[in-house]
């Protein structure tokens, strides 16, 4: 199914883009991260990231649906 990913901060630098649309068989954010991390060379472990789907935080094992917008969030540093 088609999924859209947005990247921020160091993940965007590493990916070389701010967004991408891809076809994936991943059923959860955990599976999707494993796939994308390998392809993009992301070094963060899942424990150091949070994940949002369609603008809201979700658990790593939440079900994904076609058309979802997924964001893997590196540790934040605002303020």
């Amino acid at each position: 199914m088609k999924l859209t990913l947005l990247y921020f901060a160091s993940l965007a630098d590493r990916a070389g883009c701010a967004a991408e649309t891809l076809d994936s068989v991943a059923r959860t954010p955990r599976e999707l991260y494993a796939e994308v991390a390998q392809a993009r060379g992301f070094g963060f472990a899942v424990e150091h990231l949070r994940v949002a789907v369609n603008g809201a935080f979700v658990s790593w094992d939440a079900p994904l649906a076609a058309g979802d917008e997924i964001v893997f969030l590196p540790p934040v540093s605002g303020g």
Partner: protein
Amino acid sequence: MNGEAGDARGQAAMPMKRFQLSEEPIDVGAERPALDHAAAGAYASFEGWVRDHNDGRAVQRLDYQAYAALASTEGEAILDEALVRFRVREARCVHRVGRLAIGDLAVWVGVSADHRGDAFEACRWIIDEVKRRVPIWKNEHYVDGESGWLHPDNRPAEGV
């Protein structure tokens, strides 16, 4: 009475946002009146400024990047939560995004309360939660020409 009804309609038409991301410099003087309340006897605020050094390195400027959709809802949730957790009358926060120079105001938190203790406590709690939860990232540009995204412990990213 007609005048009051008019005011109420006006407020309903423009829902109040307590947390804002701003691409423009923060005007504290323009934000502070939102905290006005006849029962409030105290106002506490926090200003976060861009400093010229971090972790032993000379900093020239920085960029803030936000995942705006989620930063807005998470920031709003923090301020709503503060109004429940603390005996305060109103609370606001504005966080800059984009390119900032040394000395620029990066984040402002304002709280009004009946008494100073609650205002101070809530203000401290809000800035701590904003730093911990809101998806905003800081990219420091160093005097030596390098740059790096900060991920916690305020150190440049090693995770990628």
